C-alpha cells in the first residue's frame, strides 16, 4: 500500500508522461498536416527518462537538453503553451520564437534552451556544475544527451573535467540505440555506455529507461551523490527511439521485430498497469488524465496559432546583453 503523498508522487509521474505523449502525438499531427514550421525531433516512447530524472530534481536544479527536448521541457515544468508558441515561431514562445523546436528552454524553470550540437551540452553542464560548486550552492545539473554523443570529443572532455573537480553533474545518456539512422553497434565496440565512467574514475550505472520508477530512483541516488560532494554520475538509461530521427523519417533501418519488442515495452502502459495492479489508480482515472492532457494541448494549439509573430523590431534584439556591469 502507498501512503497518500507517495501515491500523489507516483501519479504525478504518470500524468507527466501522458502529457508528454499527448503533446508529441499532437505536434506530429500538426507537422503532418503542414501547419507547423521547421523540423521536429520527437520522444514518444522515451517519456520515462525525462520524467524520472526531472522528478528527482528540485525546482532550482537545472537540466540541459538536446534537439529532442520537448519531453525534457514538459518534465521540468514548462507549459504546453510556452512550447507550442515557440514551435509556431511566435514572440510569446519560451524563447520569443528565436529558438524553435531544437532550442526550447526556460531558465526560470531550470532548463537551458536545448543544445542541438551533439554533445555540446556536456561541457556546458560541467561548467554550470562548476558554478554551483564555486558558489557553494546546493544545486545540481542533469545533462541529457543521446548514445550518439558519447563518440564526441565533447563527452570525453566534459565528463573528465567534471570527474577531476568532483562537480555536481548527472550525465544522463538516453541510449535509444540509434544516432540518426546508425545503430550503436556500428559505432561502439563496448555498447555499455555507463562503463565509460570508470575510465574517468567516477560512478556510472545502467538502468531500464522505460521504467520511470527505476529512472527516478537512480536519478535521486545520483542527485544525492552530487549534493554530498561525491562528484558526477553517468546514468545510462536504456530506451528506444520509436519515432524517426526527425520528421518524415520512416525508420526503415529499424528491424520490425526490434520495433515490436520495444513498442510492447511502452513506459506509460507499463507504469499505468503497475499502478492499477497496486490499486493506486483505476483505468478510468488514467483515461481522464489522457483526456485532460489532450484538451489542454488542443486549447494551447488554438492560442498558439493566433499568437503574435515576431516583428521586425525583434530581429536584432537579444544578440548582446546591453548593460555592462558597474
Amino acid at each position, binding site marked *: 500500500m502507498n501512503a497518500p503523498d507517495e501515491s500523489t508522487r507516483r501519479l504525478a509521474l504518470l500524468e507527466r508522461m501522458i502529457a508528454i505523449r499527448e503533446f508529441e502525438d499532437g505536434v506530429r499531427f500538426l507537422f503532418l498536416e503542414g501547419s507547423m514550421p521547421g523540423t521536429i525531433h520527437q520522444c514518444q516512447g522515451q517519456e520515462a527518462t525525462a520524467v524520472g530524472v526531472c522528478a528527482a530534481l528540485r525546482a532550482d536544479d537545472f537540466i540541459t537538453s538536446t534537439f529532442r527536448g520537448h519531453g525534457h521541457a514538459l518534465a521540468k515544468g514548462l507549459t504546453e503553451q510556452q512550447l507550442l508558441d515557440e514551435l509556431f515561431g511566435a514572440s510569446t514562445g519560451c524563447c*520569443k520564437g528565436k529558438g524553435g523546436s531544437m*532550442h526550447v528552454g526556460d531558465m526560470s524553470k531550470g532548463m537551458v534552451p536545448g543544445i542541438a*550540437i551533439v554533445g555540446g551540452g556536456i561541457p556546458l553542464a560541467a*561548467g554550470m556544475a562548476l558554478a554551483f560548486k*564555486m558558489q557553494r550552492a546546493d544545486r545540481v545539473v542533469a545533462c541529457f544527451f543521446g548514445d550518439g554523443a558519447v563518440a564526441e570529443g565533447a563527452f*570525453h572532455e*566534459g565528463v573528465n573535467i567534471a570527474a577531476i573537480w568532483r562537480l555536481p553533474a548527472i550525465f544522463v545518456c538516453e541510449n535509444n540505440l540509434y544516432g540518426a539512422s546508425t545503430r550503436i553497434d556500428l559505432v561502439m565496440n563496448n555498447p555499455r555506455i555507463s562503463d565509460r565512467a570508470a575510465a574517468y574514475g567516477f560512478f556510472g550505472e545502467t538502468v531500464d529507461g522505460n521504467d520511470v520508477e527505476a529512472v527516478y530512483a537512480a536519478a535521486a541516488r545520483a542527485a544525492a551523490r552530487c549534493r554530498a560532494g561525491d562528484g558526477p554520475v553517468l546514468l545510462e538509461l536504456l530506451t528506444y527511439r520509436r519515432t524517426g530521427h526527425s520528421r518524415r523519417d520512416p525508420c526503415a533501418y529499424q528491424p520490425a521485430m526490434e520495433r515490436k519488442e520495444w513498442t510492447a515495452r511502452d513506459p506509460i502502459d507499463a507504469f499505468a498497469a503497475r499502478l492499477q495492479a497496486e490499486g493506486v489508480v483505476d483505468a478510468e482515472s488514467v483515461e481522464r488524465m489522457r483526456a485532460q492532457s489532450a484538451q489542454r494541448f488542443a486549447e494551447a494549439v488554438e492560442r498558439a496559432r493566433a499568437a503574435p509573430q515576431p516583428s521586425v523590431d525583434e530581429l536584432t534584439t537579444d544578440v548582446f546583453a546591453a548593460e555592462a556591469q558597474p
Partner: protein
Amino acid sequence: MKRQGIAEALRDAIAEEMERDPRVFCIGEDIGVPGGWGGAFTVTLNLEKRFPDRILNTPIAELGFFGVATGAAMMGMRPIVDVQYSDFLFLASDQIINNAAKLRYMSGGQIRVPMVMRAPVGATGRGAQHAQNMERHFIGVPGLKVVAPSNAYDAKGLLKAAVRDDNPVMIFEHKLLYGSKGARAESGAVDATSDIPDDDYSVPLGEAAVLRPGRDVTIFGWLLMAHFAQQAATKLTAEGIEAEVVDVRSLSPLDWPTLVTSARKSGRALIVEEGPKTGGVGAEIAAGLAERAPKVRIARLASANIPVPFSPALENLYRPNAERIASGARRLIADGRET
C-alpha cells in the same frame, strides 16, 4: 604611474578584477601550476598564490574548458579563459561560436554569458600551427566582441572592460608584444610598454585609437602591425609624407566613425594585416570603408595566402614589415596622383 609591459599589465588587471569581484576566475592550461609558467606567456604567473580557488588548471581539453567556462558564465560566474595559442581556438570553436555567442539570442534574451577569452596570435618562429592570426575567424560571429590591444595601457583597460561586460569578449594578444620575461621571453619582441596609471581605469570596447595624425594617407593596423605602421610613418616623414596611423583595436564591432573620419581626411586608406589577405579582417574594413566613403582610395597589405612558414627567412617575407608598409603607402599616394 609605472612602466609595464603587456604581460605585467594584464596580470595586474586580472588580479585587480578578481580582487574586486569574487565571481571572476581564470581557467586554462598551465595557468597556475606552482613552479610553472603562469600560462604560456607568464600572464597569470603566481596568481594561484593569491587566489588558490580561482585559478583553475585544466586538462589539455580546449573544447571542454571553453564549454565549462561558458556554462559557469551562464550561471553567474565571470570566467577569464586562457588559451595557450590562439590556433587552438579551432578546437574550442563549437563552444565559443555555437554556445557562448549564440545562447543569448537563441534563448530570446534569457541568458548572459559574461566571459573573457584571451588568445595569443602572431608569427613567432613556430611555424604553421602555433602562430596564426585567428582574428579573421571570429570577427563575423554575431554575439561575440573582439578586441586586439597593441600596448600595455590598452591591454589592461580593455581586459577590465571585457571582464565588466556581460557578453563574451575575445581578446587577441600578440606574442611579440607581451614583454614576457625569463624563460618565456620571445626573440624579436617589440616594446609595447606603457605608463600605467595607479588608479583604476578601463578602455571602452568598440573604439579605435588614432596613434598619430597625418594628412596624406591613413595606415590602419592592429597588434604588431600598429607598431610597424608607426615605424613606417616615421620613415615616410623624412620623405615629406605625413601618414596618420590608426590602431583599429576593436575588431568587432569596428569603430566606423573613427575609421571613416580618418580615411576621409586623406582620401587614402592602407589597411595592414598580419595574416593571409584573402578573407581577412582587412577585407571587412576595406568593404566597410568603400560603402561608407566611396571616394577613398583603398589598398590592403597583408600576408601571402599561405600557412605561416617556419624558416625565419620565409617568416620575414610572410609578415608585413615597416619597409613594405612604407612602400605600400608611397604606392597608394602615387596611384592617387595618376588618376
